[in-house]
């Protein structure tokens, strides 16, 4: 929204942005109304009841339970309206939709590394198609950062040692700000970039134009071999001395403790860096840890590979990019933070 030469609000460029602005307008309207009302009453009283003679003493007023009740209950109800609206909207935004296209983000001092699932890498830039649901899976290599896109009205911290996610659907093409929004040291204010929203066709072309890069899944497959994972888990994750990985992602895994957990991104990552923490039922804890031997980028690649392993096609994981035919396959998305 622009007013003359000052714009008061950022552009509305995502499905979420307009909804957040609507709530913002509601909040602004209601709070401005009451602020003006109370200030007005205040000013009125201060003038109307100004002291007229030096020692006058007005009659004391006892108070009023009725008034107290009114001005407790009404603000409470108004506050609840803010709460319900805000929480509802948050709920919609907090859960990534199924079938969102995934993009991996790694934050590090002081840059953003982005990798598309078809292999394209970017630094401090994020190309996305308009009108498609995009899910960002993010982590940090060092301190806590925060991935903030004002025009989408979204923000989520990126943490070391963990994955966080957020999603959006862009509704406008253009180039928009990307900021780091959690103080992370010297060049925090330089950890900025651009989100470039393109028409879907243009985006597919752009993606294709960068063909030749290895997809994360293919890179992951190479790591799977070179790190020796295949020797226990099988070349295509069919299992052996170690648990089966094919078809594992998104399903339940039973552990030696008797509990079951969803094999989501967090689980997979932890199994690689801290395998003793959760051991699959029927196996002993002989898997060594790869902490320190794989970078966050490589962990994401292994993750992409493992996600691509289907029971149906035990011999053929997703091939390396043939861009015209395969924009990145959407996958069913288990939720991070299920609690």
């Amino acid at each position, binding site marked *: 929204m622009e007013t003359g030469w000052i714009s008061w609000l950022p552009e509305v460029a995502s499905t979420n942005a307009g909804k957040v602005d609507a709530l913002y307008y509601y909040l602004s309207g209601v709070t401005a109304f009451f602020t003006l009302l109370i200030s007005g009453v205040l000013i009125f009283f201060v003038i109307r009841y100004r002291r007229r003679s030096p020692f006058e003493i007005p009659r004391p007023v006892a108070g009023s339970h009725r008034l107290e009740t009114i001005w407790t209950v009404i603000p409470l109800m108004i506050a609840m309206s803010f709460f319900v609206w805000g929480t509802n909207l948050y709920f919609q935004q907090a859960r990534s939709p199924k079938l969102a296209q995934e993009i991996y983000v790694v934050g590090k001092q002081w840059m953003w590394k982005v990798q598309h699932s078809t292999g394209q890498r970017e630094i401090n830039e994020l190309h996305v198609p308009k009108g498609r649901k995009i899910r960002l899976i993010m982590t940090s290599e060092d301190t806590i950062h925060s991935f903030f896109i004002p025009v989408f009205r979204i923000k989520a911290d990126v943490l070391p040692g963990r994955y966080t996610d957020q999603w959006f659907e862009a509704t406008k093409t253009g180039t928009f700000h990307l900021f780091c929004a959690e103080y992370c040291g010297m060049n925090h204010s330089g950890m900025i970039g651009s989100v470039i929203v393109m028409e879907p066709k243009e985006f597919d072309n752009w993606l294709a134009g960068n063909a030749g890069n290895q997809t994360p899944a293919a890179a992951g497959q190479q790591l799977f071999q070179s790190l020796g994972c295949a020797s226990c888990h099988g070349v295509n994750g069919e299992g052996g001395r170690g648990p089966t990985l094919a078809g594992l992602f998104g399903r339940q895994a039973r552990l*030696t*403790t008797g509990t079951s957990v969803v094999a989501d991104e967090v689980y997979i990552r932890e199994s690689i860096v*801290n395998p*003793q*923490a959760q*051991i699959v039922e029927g196996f*002993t*804890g002989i898997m060594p*840890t790869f902490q320190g031997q794989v970078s966050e980028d490589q962990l994401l690649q292994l993750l992409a590979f493992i996600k691509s392993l289907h029971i149906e096609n035990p011999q053929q994981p997703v091939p390396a990019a043939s861009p015209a035919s395969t924009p990145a396959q959407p996958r069913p998305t288990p939720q991070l933070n299920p609690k």
Partner: protein
Amino acid sequence: MAESVTAEHEVHHPALQHHFENLEQQREAGTLGMWVFLVTEIMFFGGMFFAYTLYRGKYGLAFASASNHLSWKLGAINTAVLIFSSFTMAYGVYSVQIGKQRRLIISLILTIVLGLTFLGIKAVEYHDKYVDHLIPGHLIPGHPFSPKDVHLLPGASAQNIEMFYWIYFAMTGMHAVHMVIGVGLLSVILYFSIRGRYDPEYHNPVEVSGLYWHFVDLIWIFLFPLLYLLGRHMEH
């Protein structure tokens, strides 16, 4: 609140401070002050209890393995020592309330001795940890942490053993610091007791020191089962 009477200088107790109306008010203030202080101590230790609970939940097996490596016998002896010292302390307070100076002094001496015993046994335990390379991090130069002497329960990760020992030292160390302060405090009270300062009419410092001592004892009574006993059933 009771009507207060102006203290007349000729008759007021030498221990009455001038900003108080009378000894009763002074006693009330002193006792409430100690209780409020103990509440702050609960919050202080509470932060560490919270961290322990959190990580115990996350790394239960590792923590149980590390906990089983502690000497429950020494811990139990220390618990008995402290509980008995609280008894001697309480007896000391009782003694001064009924005007028995000598019993007060003996009780205080016993309490102090028991407190020092506790600290001595703690020192032995800490030394054992040092010998076993279980002092966390690189606090002792040239003697880094190594969990190899700790028998790992199946499913436990060696990586998290150090976390247990860090919390163990933080909590028992903080507790030990409070014990040292307590011993110091009681020594001061002992000194003044020998000087005959306390009588049935005025002995609030003895009472509030007792409160402090009981509190430090109580912290240990929580620490002992949480740090030493949980998970023992999984031993071997």
